[in-house]
């Protein structure tokens, strides 16, 4: 696909997107007038209170939901359904208990009708890199929560998407595993130059992982503000999430975002 607008084109773009759910009691406006652009390779976090439509936003970008207003574009092309370029990591691992770890990891490739030998090799390599090499033929119930979520990451990346959507992927984990895994995932996504969109209600997670944090208002969700997250480090590189939590900038961003979310509780 040739880029129509040339360089500088957004990897993911939302143009005045709105979504209404229809039910017997009437219409619910989940999202309203959302416009935003994510550059290739950028790591963006979207935060907001529960029920503000964060997860809905990811479903729209992934193409499993269609907006009632506006348009969603990936690589400049309107999204009309799930695309191979977009991978989606859900809130929980949802591993199939009847499949082995390796068979779970190749699920996406299998559904997409990819070359299964190559997919198996890719999945095995990913799982081995995530420290699960000896568990390929185990069943999900034999793994801990953190290990299972790493299998889910391998399942997402096995189809080689350019864009990875993360829907509170650590929320089901205990706090220690959660921070450790956030480090790993951020490192993996940066190294592979994926465009990442993380949805979370955890301010610390957003600031420590993302280069940009977008705040959504309460329902109907709208873009309330957009913060660039920058750290001054000696080597000019972005610190890993865990290290980022110990920087002075972290607290500044954290407090600013905290207040912005607080306002909503009162208002």
């Amino acid at each position, binding site marked *: 696909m040739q880029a129509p607008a040339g360089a500088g084109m957004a990897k993911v773009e939302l143009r005045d997107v709105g979504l209404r759910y229809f039910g017997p009691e009437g219409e619910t406006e989940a999202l309203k007038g959302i416009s935003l652009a994510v550059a290739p390779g950028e790591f963006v976090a979207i935060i907001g209170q529960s029920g503000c439509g964060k997860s809905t936003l990811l479903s729209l970008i*992934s193409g*499993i939901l269609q907006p009632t207003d506006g348009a969603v574009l990936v690589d400049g092309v309107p999204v009309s*359904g*799930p*695309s*191979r370029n977009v*991978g*989606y990591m*859900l*809130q*929980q691992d*949802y591993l*199939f*208990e*009847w499949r082995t770890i390796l068979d779970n990891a190749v*699920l*996406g490739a*299998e*559904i*997409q009708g990819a070359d299964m030998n190559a997919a198996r090799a890719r999945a095995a390599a990913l799982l081995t890199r995530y420290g699960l090499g000896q568990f390929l033929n185990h*069943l999900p*119930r*034999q*793994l*801990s929560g*953190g*290990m299972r979520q790493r299998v889910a990451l391998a399942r997402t990346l096995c*189809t080689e998407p350019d864009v990875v959507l993360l829907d509170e992927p650590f929320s089901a984990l205990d706090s220690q*595993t959660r921070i450790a895994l956030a480090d790993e995932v951020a490192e993996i996504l940066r190294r592979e130059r994926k465009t990442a969109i993380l949805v979370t209600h955890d301010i610390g997670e957003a600031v420590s992982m993302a280069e940009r944090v977008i705040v959504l208002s309460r329902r109907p969700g709208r873009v309330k503000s957009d913060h660039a997250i920058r750290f001054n480090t000696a080597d000019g590189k972005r610190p890993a999430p865990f290290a980022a939590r110990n920087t002075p900038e972290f607290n500044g961003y954290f407090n600013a975002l905290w207040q912005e979310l607080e306002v909503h509780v009162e208002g």
Partner: protein
Amino acid sequence: MSKVETAGPVNPSPQYLEWLRRERRGHLTVRTTQLALLVAFLVLWEVAPRLDLINPLFTSYPSTIWPTFLEMLNATPQQASILTHTWATTLATVVGFTAAMVLGTAIAAALWWWNALYKVLDPYLVVANALPKTAFVPLFYIWLGATLSIYGMSLAISLFITILMIYSGFQGVDPNKIKLAQTFGATKGQILIKVVLPGSVPTLIATLKVNAGLSLVGVVVGEFQSATYGLGYLIQYGSQIFKMNIVMTAITILAIVSSLMYLAISWLESAVMRRR
């Protein structure tokens, strides 16, 4: 971090050995009690008629079952071998519940596929399930003839509950697993084959258990009406000529057949569940 199965201790502590002993003793107590109950029942059944507490004409004796069985092994011009009768009943039952499983799963899949179809048929399915199918035995006899009516009854009695159970199993599959498949662009057929069906295996096995019993009921009731073979026929025949030993022998074989079917399904269940 890793959660791996616990291996047996290399050097078991005395407390652990004591615990094992208690476990084993508890298990043994259950088994002994089960056996004792069976023996007590048989003794009561044998002794009560002999002491004239009950009329032996009505109950026969357990001690007559084995001789009756041996006697009936040989076919006579009037009567087929009891093995032929047993085979006829078993075959009709297995055919009945296999047909119910296959047809029921297919119909449940169709209802899952077309939600509108389910909405339309729902009340009819519920009524058809609640209806006593045995009321149709004489009708089936007229419509389908002597042999087919037995298969028909065996299918009819288990089909509707199969559809309802499997459909609710399909509905019970975690919608997030389906969402996950959708994020990879799965088609409806792929969702059925890769998510819904394998996710419903426990329901399928539970349905199989229910059906084995129900199909047997259907067959025996069908045989009461129309058959010249089968354990249901033997029961009917034996009671008409007041030979309770024949009735009791046939019922005993029914008990054995249903136990064996249950065992086979349990074995299948443990074989499948080992993968979960």
